[in-house]
Each structure stands twice: as C-alpha cells, then as structure tokens.
C-alpha cells in the first residue's frame, strides 16, 4: 500500500461530511486531540534532541529557515500576477503555504515508521521554527503600504497560541526528562499516537468536507496552485535537506514540511493581521486541496525526491 492506513480516517470523515451524516466530533474532544498530538510530537522531538550537538542543529536550522523563506516569496508573485488575486489575499495565501502543518508532518512520520526508515529526531524543532517566519513575510507582503497591522495581537496569537506553546513545551520537557525519564509516559504519548492521529484525521475530514463543497467557487487557478505549490516547495525542501546532510528519511520530512500549508495556526493569525483577506480562499486551498494532496499523493513523491537528490550525491560537508 503506497500510503499510511491512518489517512483512510480522513476519507471516512470527509465522506461523513459530504453525506451529511450526523457524525460530529465534540469541540472539547477536538481540543483534547490537538493538545495530545502537539505534546506527543514535542516530547518525541525533545527526547531525540539530546542526541545531537546543539551547534550542528543551530546551523542546519538557520539554512532550513532561510531556504523556507523562498516559499512565500515565490507564491506571492504567482498569486498576484497569474491568479490576479488582491494583495491581501495573495499575501495571506503565501503565508499559509510558507507556514507548516503539524498533522501533515505526523502523517509523514507514520509513513516513515511503517517503512522503518530512520530520520533525525530533531526535525521536530523545524516545526516550531518554520511556523512563524512565513506568516510574518505573508503579512508584510499583504499589508505593504496599506495601513497599520495589529502586530502585537498577531505575534501573541502565534507565539502563545497552543501550537507553538505545546510543541516547544513538549520539546523542553522531553529534553529535560530524557528517554529514561519519559518512559512512564510512553504508553500514553507514543504507543497510542497513531490511534489518536486517526481520530484527529476523522475530524479533519469532516472539516475539510465543508471546504470541498466550496471548491467550485475558487476557480481553476487556485486548485492548480494548491497542487503545484507543494510540489515546488517539496523540491526546494528535498534539495535543502540533501545539501545540509539529512538522511533520506529526514529529507522526506523536510520536503513534507516545506510542501505543507498551515490551516490551524495561520488562519487565526492572518484573520487578525490581514482581516481584509478572504479566509475561505486560503483555508479552502490549504485544507480542502493541499492537505489531502500531500498525504495521499505527495508523500510517495517526496520520498522519491529525497532518494533522487541523495542519489545525485550533492552535499555540503
């Protein structure tokens, strides 16, 4: 099977939504699942982080962040000129695509663990680091010369919103506790991870189904963008991962991070900072098209890309 079985729960949720089933994941359960996933991913990364020298991670992180800045900068002119979108909409969508998706990353981790492909555990640090810069670039692009931005509220939303808070909190707890200290929590946070991810994907499918129904109003350009942009970003990610010396598994994860578009943190931040942008466009493209594209079709392609670039033997020692 080319993809990880948990993605079928997304299909089930989407089908339930499209068939107008009475299935609804209560808000508090959704909150619980998202808190669980963020903490579990953070903890997993923190435990692994201790195994690597900090200097190496810092240098790689810097390169990865600079390369990631290319994504909104490529997306914006395409959205403006080819798509004919307003400055606000183009900036907002560029920010969404430059930022990252935790759930897409989780599915990629499941993809690797199913195939027993190793990866650098510290890549989870990139989830924290890559979420915000693209949002700031997106806001600057959207608002350039058009009035004040609520920076304070927007940055507060991003930094102290639960995703960065729990991811980095989990990282620090995992780092302090170490593999032995975290053992008593293994059963909850690591063994149950895929089951919880499956439930979360069921909810994602339900939410996405409301966006899928709106797809026809977006127009062909945005649909095409939502498929082509992750592919372009994945090529940049796979090349960057190979150049900085990541393993094939790590390169696949980086390509997936670059390809993924944020649909949880970014919409809230953009709604505050660029309120004139239409949120239906960015969330619809990111969640209705790019997310399913990434988990069903993208992952095997990004795996192939990672192997391809590694096969070329390009690397900077």
């Amino acid at each position, binding site marked *: 099977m080319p993809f990880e079985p948990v993605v079928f729960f997304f299909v089930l949720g989407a089908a339930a939504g499209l068939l107008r089933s009475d299935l609804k994941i209560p*808000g508090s359960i*959704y*909150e619980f699942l998202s808190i669980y996933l963020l903490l579990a991913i953070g903890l997993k990364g923190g435990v692994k982080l201790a195994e690597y020298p900090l200097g190496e991670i810092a240098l790689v992180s810097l390169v990865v962040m600079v390369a990631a800045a290319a994504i909104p900068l490529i997306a914006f002119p395409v959205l403006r000129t080819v798509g004919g979108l307003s400055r606000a909409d183009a900036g907002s969508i560029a920010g969404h695509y430059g930022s990252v998706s935790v759930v897409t990353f989780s599915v990629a981790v499941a993809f690797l663990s199913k195939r027993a492909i190793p990866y650098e555990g510290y890549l989870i640090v990139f989830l924290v680091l890559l979420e915000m810069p693209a949002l700031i670039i997106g806001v600057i692009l959207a608002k350039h010369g058009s009035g004040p931005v609520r920076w304070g509220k927007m940055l507060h939303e991003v930094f102290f919103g639960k995703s960065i808070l729990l991811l980095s909190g989990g990282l620090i707890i995992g780092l302090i506790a170490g593999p032995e200290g975290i053992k008593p929590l293994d059963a909850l946070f690591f063994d149950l991870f895929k089951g919880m991810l499956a439930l979360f994907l069921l909810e994602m499918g*339900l*939410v996405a189904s*409301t966006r899928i129904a709106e797809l026809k109003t977006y127009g062909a350009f945005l649909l095409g963008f939502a498929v082509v942009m992750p592919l372009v970003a994945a090529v940049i990610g796979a090349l960057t991962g190979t150049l900085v010396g990541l393993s094939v598994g790590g390169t696949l994860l980086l390509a997936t991070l670059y390809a993924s578009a944020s649909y949880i943190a970014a919409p*809230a931040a953009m709604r*505050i900072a660029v*309120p004139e942008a239409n949120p239906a466009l960015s969330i619809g493209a990111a969640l209705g098209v790019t997310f399913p594209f990434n988990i069903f079709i993208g992952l095997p392609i990004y795996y192939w890309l990672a192997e391809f670039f590694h096969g070329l033997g390009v690397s900077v020692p």
Partner: protein
Amino acid sequence: MTSQPKTLLTIITEGVLENSLIDDFKRLGVIGYTISEARGLGTHGLRTGNWRKDGNIRVDIVADSDQCARIVDQLRADYDRDYGLLMYSCPVDLHG
C-alpha cells in the same frame, strides 16, 4: 423587588476577535460581560463552530444605554468592514 432599567447589548462575532474585544471592553470601562460560543448562518457563511477558530462568539453586556452606544460605535468602526459582526440591543430590567 428592586430593579433598574438598563440596556442589554448582544454582540455576535468571530471567535478570533475574543481577546481584542476584551481589551476594547476594558478601555471602554465595561464592568462585566458574558461570552459564550455560538454557531449559525449569516452573511459571512455557515459558521459551524466545530473548529475553535471557525466558530462565533456571543457576548452579552448589560449597561447604561449611553455606554452601549459607545461600544457599538467603537466596534462598528474597528471591525464591521472586515469581520462578521452583528449587534442588537433591547431594554431590560436589572434585578438585584
């Protein structure tokens, strides 16, 4: 039973504005407010509320009519152009 005439102002808007509204209320001297989650259909489309940031909030404030008018003017100026915002008020008797 003692009661005094007041105005009940109800605001229905996007959940993402909650923190901003609370700051505005403080600035405008609002003594108390009640916020609850809400869902429904309006000119900004269906707000299912099954997603934290996709939901609406409903804010109830009981205050003097002048203060309610100031709140309405402020919120209309700040948010009405870009956000879903519905406000209505009615006279109420405040007991106790």
